């Protein structure tokens, strides 16, 4: 792997008005000074250092930036950061807990569902919301739930396999999962 990068906030705030935003991210209460026009994605990635959520198009077309806001899959690149105040934000980093990776994360690894991995965080958030609402979705329902997340590597086949396997495991071990995705 690459040498660990040094992660510090990039914005030095010379041109934009900066305001304090209060966010609940992955269970942490966070306060940060952000330029007033920042999106939730920019705040997560460049202010809070949560770089798991990706920017693929910055205009809501690709879904790589998908996070959960109050449990709903949300395009964080189209969400002004202020809209997330007072709501619970969960990113890909928040799907895992102290017991280990979320069953979806484990299944994506086991099935090779992440090739380049750039769409994966957004797809995982969409899939987590689906399984929260529907523990046993059909393949068609999985396809519908992931239709806002473009993957360019896999042809989606391994992704469906992984979601189905994770769903089965979550049904077998209901106490283990889903907590952080609520």
């Amino acid at each position: 792997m690459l040498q660990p990068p040094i992660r510090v906030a990039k914005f030095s705030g010379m041109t934009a008005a900066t305001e304090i935003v209060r966010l609940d991210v992955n269970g942490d209460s966070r306060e940060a000074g952000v330029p007033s026009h920042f999106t939730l994605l920019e705040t997560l990635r460049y202010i809070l250092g949560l770089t798991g959520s990706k920017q693929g198009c910055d205009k809501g077309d690709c879904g790589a930036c998908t996070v959960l806001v109050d449990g709903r899959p949300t395009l964080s690149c189209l969400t002004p950061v202020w809209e997330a105040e007072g709501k619970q934000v969960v990113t890909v980093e928040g799907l895992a807990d102290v017991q280990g990776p979320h069953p979806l994360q484990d299944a994506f690894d086991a099935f090779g569902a992440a090739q380049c991995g750039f769409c994966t965080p957004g797809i995982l958030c969409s899939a987590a919301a689906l399984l929260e609402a529907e523990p046993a979705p059909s393949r068609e329902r999985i396809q519908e739930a992931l239709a806002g997340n473009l993957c360019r590597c896999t042809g989606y086949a391994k992704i469906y396999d992984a979601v189905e396997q994770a769903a089965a495991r979550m049904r077998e071990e209901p106490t283990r999962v889903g907590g952080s995705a609520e």
Partner: protein
Amino acid sequence: MSVKSPKSQSDFALIGTSMRKIEGLDKSTGRAVYTDDIVLPGMLHGKILRSPHPHARIVRIDTAEAEALPGVHGVITGKDMPTTYGIIPWTPDEYPLCVDKVRYIGDGVAAVAAVDEDTALKALELIHVEYEELPAFLDPFEAVQADGSTPYVHDARKEGWNGNITKMVQLEFGEVDASMDESDIVVEDDYFFEGTTHTPIEPHCAIGQWDGVGKLTVWSATQVPHYLHRELARVLEVDQACVRVLQPLVGGAFGGKSEPFDLEFCVAKLAMITGRPVKILYTREEVFYAHRGRHPFHMKYRTGANRDGKLTSVDAKILLDGGAYASFGLVTTYYSGQLLCAPYHMPAYRFDSTRVYTNKPACGPKRGHGSVQPRFAFEVQIDKLAERLSIDPIDFRRRNFIGSDTRTVNELRITSNGFLECLESVEEASSWSDKFRKMPFGRGIGIAGSTYISGTNYPIYPNDMPQSGVQMQIDRSGRVAVFSGASEIGQGCDSVVAYIAAEELGVPLEHIRVMRGDTDFTPVDLGAYSSRVTFMLGNAAIDAATKLRKMVQAAVAKSWDVKPGEVLLAGGFAVWGPDTERQMPIREAFHLAESEFGTLGATGSYNTPKDVHGEYRGGTIGASPAYSFTAHVAEVEVDVDTGVVEVQKIWVAHDCGRALNPILVEGQMEGSAYMGFAEALMEEQVYKDADHGRAGLHNAPSLLDYRIPTSLDTPELQALIVESIDPEGPYGAKEAGEGPLHPSIPAIANAIYDAVGVRMNSLPFSPPQVWRAVEAAREAGSLSKPAEPTELAESPSAMSAD
């Protein structure tokens, strides 16, 4: 090159089983680090000003106002880096930023570094560029016929030449005209393959850092860190030994990141003049301008055959619309013809290919470089020949099978060849014989085959050094560290070296560490292109691991007083073959070896055999140490009232030699078939004409308007692995990442014909194009289910493979 004796599956502990990727969990938990995830202290943000004109002279650039803007640390123009570069050493025709002319809408003319993105964007508005607009060449036919009355896209290399021509290749093998004349039937048609682009989900990104005293570091989402290393040193005039290229994980590439781009030079130069790290992240719009995607091909094919269903002669004429720069175009022009000569025996073959410059974003290599377009045309030609001869199209393909251990008509060496097994596999899985010409009107099924290289036999710049190298070291803890310069773009090459190290040294996979993608520390691998990585890196890894294994075996054998060959390393233990009760933990074996030989490390390398091509100009291009083979069957439903084609399923059979990790091979096959399907039905990298906006402007530089398939669009894909166990490949493996794209497109075209009797010779098969073709057929009275062939498919066992 010695031929390795093929191992059977039972000889392996790990190879051939489904394994996780070493970085898989990093990717699914958000820990994986991509270039834009990196933030350096004091980092500035760069932006590039791009041309609004498709073709213009730069008269003057005034950067004074931009430089005076608070927060701006540096502004550069073409004059700051007046050295041309290009991935192919013979065609360096690009400047990092344009010096004298702009050649497409989106060409870079200046760059700024500022404290933040907003300031950088504001600074771009304060750069004043005066242009003298020139007539633009947007049509490749106009470009090829240009007479010099208006300026060419590039200066002609010689007085009187057409400066719009990148490359012309004419090659002929056998007696094409005579064979054509003697053929029982000849099919002739024109085909058009529209340009498409890669659209990796990660936009290009680069960071430059300058230490102030001579050392330059660049992080980049590139597929070719080694070539980037060389070009950065040359253009920026820094000693190669002082340039370090780091390649974080790459968020998809598909050929779209396989040469240096303007942002990499700009972050380096801006870092050098500002003394601060500088990052540039392309917008999605800029990714469409950077392009280097599939060339539009205008193709004419004449193909002859005899009544017995044997091909006689193939004659192709191709015009490649190259866009503004050469990119890999020299190679593309050769590949447009050279890669067509298998899996079918061609007694005579000629191609005449010309690549022209036009004032549009440059085309380059996209997955299946240069051979996807002719493969589309040729496999449809074959379908037409089979139809005319009333032979089942799978049967027709079998009759023309070129065989294994042979040479193509253009003298490329073919070794392992599992194409017949691929045909059989898709034929059976798709229930072909129950469906072909038998389903109701509107539903159809089609077949196509293909071949692809497992790496180019020759590196991009001529040299005799290895194409790939790996270094391994054994640690007293029982761990193995692998140093690999290969480019992990999602295909799994970092995992492949780990699997090989674990297999050879008997270490659990989780005890392998891969140090990757850093030109200061990892051996050279030439890059992730031409489907070369598993083949070449894998062989280099086996070479390194074997050296270490022999040391460990020797040390253990000495301790046990047995023969070294009897010591097996597997599953975390050294085991004595004749009596497996006798064993020791691998860590102890490593201690014995380190005591015997000192610190344990080894390098391994791979270079290609050099006698696998013909002795003619261009004969090396298309040569590969091994070729993969593929067959697809596609099933479609065509709505003749709307022109909508729904692809229901694609069966994908691919001869990958040996599947080192079947789950990753399937992933490559499914992803390839998906990408071919996408090009067949949806994708078009096209530009406006003067009647529809600004001429030369990209029609739709966004992921909403340049449509790529969602989960709801993508058909069911079934991967069927065929293993031919290649004599040269690592454990018998060949490529799997590009070959399985090719047949998707012609298989769908042939399925549309089976459904409604309409030939689609022009891509994409979008509703308007299909609807028009259907209406034309309706008027001509040919809109109907085609007739069943009189010669139905014979069982494969009845066919000879000679």
